[in-house]
């Protein structure tokens, strides 16, 4: 589904990614882990087209995408959710999702009021139902708590019926109880939708529970890649990143 080959990215003299490769297979949940500064978010931004790599390539379903801007990439069936829950704060939850639906289908250049887009309104209702936000559909996003904003962010990511979902630290900023809920929610939803997932996450429990495969980044390079069990027992990884808590 997604191939990252020998990707290099530098900022001035700092080498953020050094010949990083990874392959995300269709239907798998692939985690990208590593400490702060390992290059996870940089790689995430390269994949979604926010940064151009200095070397290497990114392929989606066999097609090179690393030279494309983000709006083109997301229209190719990639849902994106950023590290900090991001919504359009001046709009209601429903309007956020409706705009995502229209934006991903190139339909924003139409004259009639947004409120008259019945089909999009029904679909938005459905998506908000999937993420459990139907009761706050008409609340302005600025008034929603972080957990709801993250769910809204995921609902917007799903608006284009993606095959691949990219989540950058979906649990960041949540309390312990909220993390558990969010993990359950992501697993249930994405397995039901049969999506392919690439996500970055600091929470070791979440990574080991959700991921089918893990790539470990360290100082901009791939340190290890494999099944969760193998990664969990890899002494280099345990020593450097998992802090021994799961060894």
């Amino acid at each position, binding site marked *: 589904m997604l191939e990252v080959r020998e990707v290099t990215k530098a900022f001035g003299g700092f080498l953020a990614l050094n010949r990083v490769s990874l392959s995300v297979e269709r239907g798998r949940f692939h985690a990208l882990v590593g400490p702060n500064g390992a290059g996870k978010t940089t790689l995430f931004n390269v994949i*979604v087209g*926010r940064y151009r790599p200095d070397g290497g390539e990114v392929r989606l379903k066999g097609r090179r995408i690393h030279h494309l*801007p*983000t*709006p083109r990439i*997301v*229209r190719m069936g990639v849902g*994106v*959710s*950023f590290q900090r829950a*991001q*919504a*359009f*704060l*001046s*709009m209601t939850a429903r*309007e956020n999702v*409706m*705009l*995502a639906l*229209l*934006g*991903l*289908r*190139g*339909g*924003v*250049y*139409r*004259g*009639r*009021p*947004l*409120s008259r*887009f019945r089909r999009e309104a029904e679909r938005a209702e459905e998506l908000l139902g999937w993420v459990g936000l139907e009761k706050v559909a008409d609340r302005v996003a600025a008034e929603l708590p972080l957990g709801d904003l993250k769910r809204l*962010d995921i609902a*917007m*990511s799903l*608006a*284009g019926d993606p095959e691949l979902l990219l989540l950058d630290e979906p649990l960041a900023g949540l309390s312990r109880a909220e993390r558990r809920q969010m993990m359950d929610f992501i697993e249930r939803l994405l397995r039901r939708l049969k999506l392919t997932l690439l996500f970055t996450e600091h929470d070791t429990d979440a990574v080991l529970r959700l991921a089918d495969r893990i790539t470990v980044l360290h100082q901009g390079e791939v340190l290890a890649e494999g099944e969760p069990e193998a990664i969990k027992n890899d002494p280099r990884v345990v020593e450097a990143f998992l802090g021994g808590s799961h060894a």
Partner: protein
Amino acid sequence: MRALLFALVLLLFLPLFLSRYAVEVLTQGFILALFASAFNLVFFQLGLLSFGHAAFFGAGAYTAALLVTKAGWPYLGTLPAAVLVAALLALVIGFFSVRTSRIYFTMLTLAFAQLLWAVVHKWYAFTGGDNGIPGIPVGALAGSAKGLYYLALLLLLLGLAFLYALDRSPLGYALRAVRDNEARAEAVGLSPFALRLLGFVLSGALAGAAGFLQVAWQRSAFPDFLYWTKSAEAIIAAILGGSAHLLGPSLGALAFVELGAFVQARTEYWPLVLGLVLLFLVLFFPRGLVGLFGGRDARG
């Protein structure tokens, strides 16, 4: 809604009871209202402070003035050309400016407008230089105080109706989405550059229509139409009235012009009074006159 209808009926019949001078002052208020509303499309919907909107106002004015005086067009027939030239100018300036943000956008728009002002100010052979283009024949309708009043009111209402429709359309939401969160906007397939440029061009076109009206109001075109103080008038009107409401800039423009006429008839210290009014509003009523009257903000 009732208050709006009442205001509209009042504006329709007001010229029958007012002096010529009062009608002319109100007309000037409508022209500034259209200009300020155009500016506010970029200021509020896109979240960008343009200090160069006088360029589009001036482009509309000089297009009308030059077509009438040099090509013999009837004044009213120059409106589409004035709007088109202002829109094209906005396309060029916007192409370079909307890529930048915040202070760089403000400085670039100011620089472009001042550059154009300098050209118009010195190009005696074509624009009349600092003498401007005086004595423009604008026809019987636009040449009468009441005729121009209704023409300006009509264009203002059309402009506001367009902005109202835009505000509620997916395009209006998309413009605000880019303002709210550029990264998120891109991740739902929106192109911030294309949307900002489109918003800027629409705003420039409306400002051009205001410039077109100004030619009839003064029967002349002057380089001052492109000077930075003209851009500042739109900014002041939008802040005075309340930029978050569709009618805020219009209310601010009418207050600015009416208050200006009232104060200037009594004292030479109009800028001082204006400064005090602005200070009071910004400090105590940051939502502007609309907030003072209890009007609810539009989206955002």
